[in-house]
């Protein structure tokens, strides 16, 4: 199989200004943060995001002025609160949000992945979500049953995901953990796929657990080894989220200036990923996170 291994900087060149970027993410979980920081450092502009539940990644990208639209279910950092820079940007009209129910987002991405013009759901009927969205419309059942909501296919330009291990050819493996649907569907719906991984291993290592491989390498355009690549989000079962950094961000993000200073210190400042890890506390802090000492 063809080798796809590269660097963060090279991989980021697969993302152009204006692209619609599908981003793996839950509120405080499993976001490809190293790649997100690289996009901020490279000052990408006018990106759209597609996310199930966006967390700190979305707030950083919003604060850095990288994004102008968001398609997804929700944006929240759970116990740390709302994504303030994102929220303010939506309220100011700098970011458009297309809000979808979970089944609707999965239907849009599922149709995109399967080259179908649409897929259907029975969610959202009766809500205001349908009328405000040109990508949703009610249609009749041709067999005489109840009407359904048609959800138009969504094809992101690029998908960013983070995994536990991969080989140089981009075959992607996850250790046993919660299986969120973004990893399953986004890379198949998107035109290009960038994978960061905790660890690059020999292909033979993958052969010992073929049931843990979730993406074949031919779907992947670039794979980059980035240990701690999801920090400060959690990456089960390897490490918990960094609660202190989340709290520091939420405090800083109350103002535009605070947010800018924070990003300068943790995103623009560190020359590379190793410097970032040093800036957030280095080895002893990271060791604590492997024990789920979040705060």
């Amino acid at each position, binding site marked *: 199989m063809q080798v796809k291994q590269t660097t963060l900087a090279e991989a980021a060149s697969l993302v152009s200004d204006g692209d619609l970027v599908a981003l793996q993410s*839950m*509120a*405080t*979980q499993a976001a490809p943060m190293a790649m997100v920081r690289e996009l901020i450092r490279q000052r990408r502009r006018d990106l759209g995001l597609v996310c*199930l*539940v966006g967390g700190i990644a979305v707030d950083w990208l919003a604060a850095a002025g990288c994004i102008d639209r968001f398609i*997804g*279910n*929700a*944006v*929240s950092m*759970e*116990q740390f609160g*709302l994504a303030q820079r*994102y*929220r303010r940007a*939506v*309220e100011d*009209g700098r970011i*458009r*949000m297309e*809000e*979808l*129910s*979970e*089944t*609707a987002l*999965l239907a849009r991405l*599922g149709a995109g992945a399967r080259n179908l013009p649409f897929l259907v*759901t*029975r*969610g*959202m*009927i*009766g*809500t*205001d*979500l349908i009328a*405000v969205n040109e990508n949703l419309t009610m249609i009749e059942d041709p067999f005489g049953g*109840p*009407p359904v909501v048609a959800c138009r296919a969504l094809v992101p330009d690029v998908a960013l995901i983070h995994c536990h291990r991969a080989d140089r050819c981009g075959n992607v493996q996850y250790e*046993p*953990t*919660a*299986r*969120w*649907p973004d990893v*399953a*569907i986004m890379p198949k719906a998107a035109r290009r796929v960038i994978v960061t991984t905790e660890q690059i291993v020999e292909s033979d290592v993958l052969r010992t657990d073929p049931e843990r491989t979730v993406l074949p390498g031919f779907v992947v355009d670039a794979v980059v080894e980035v240990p701690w690549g999801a920090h400060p989000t*959690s990456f*089960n*079962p390897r490490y*918990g*989220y960094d*609660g202190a950094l989340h709290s520091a961000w939420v405090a800083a993000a109350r103002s535009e200036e605070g947010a800018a200073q924070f990003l300068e210190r943790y995103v623009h400042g560190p020359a590379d990923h190793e410097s970032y890890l040093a800036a957030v506390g280095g080895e002893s802090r990271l060791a604590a996170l492997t024990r*789920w000492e*979040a*705060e």
Partner: protein
Amino acid sequence: MPQGARPDSPPAQDWTPDELMIAVLAGCFADGDQACNGMASFLPVAAFQLAKLTHAPDLVWLAGAVGLEPRPGPIPASTLEAPLWRDALMYVEQFGDFWTLALNGRWLQKFCVGAAQLDRFGNANNSVIGDYHKPKVRLPGTAGLGDMGSIGKQLYFWNPNHSPRSLVAEVDFVSCAGYLGGGDERERLGLTGGPELVVTNLCVLDFEPQSKHMRLRSVHPGVTVEQVLAATGFEPLLPAGEVAVTPVPTAEQVRLIREVIDPHGMRRREFRRR
């Protein structure tokens, strides 16, 4: 974890509103039900565990819609992270498994729902205050609730901060379908299920069967009807005759919550400091 509880436990002498709310929510779930929780859902998570330790040992819990029947230990700081689904029997894949089971209609028929706004007909809003395209406040987003209101589920709302801002006459935006305009409007759209109960820090409300208008069912001990009315953004229907008082949790329920289920007091994080 200890199994079962004394069924003849006396009413607790010493209880707090969070514990009472947990006991009320626990009472909504029975053996044979399947329950699941989303993020920041400390009261539902505590309620499911309480039910399992007392009257409903065969209640099935899908922690975070991920972990089947876990053994999580004390409630952790997040209800949507791995510590909650420790030692699960199954990691439920979200689309093929969880949503297929949820959409089916035979399983996972009851959901606990939190919402920024809830109106007199049980419509909920987690989307926007103001206009959708130019919001005054952008709320987190409706996520799974946008589905749950429309696919035949029984919805149990919990609200630890009963106020005219959270219980409103009409939501700014219907992001989770309740009884819509009331009466049979929901039924006419072919929707089954719907809002069942609203459990707040002051009282318990349900929906009057004909009009589908929210109705005061019981006030918590020490709370007056006037306090409830003053804290509500519309006038709930009142029952004929005396308004009931919500039963307090049993001593055993309170013990289980404090000692076994949530010794770190995570449940109180949902309550606004006064």
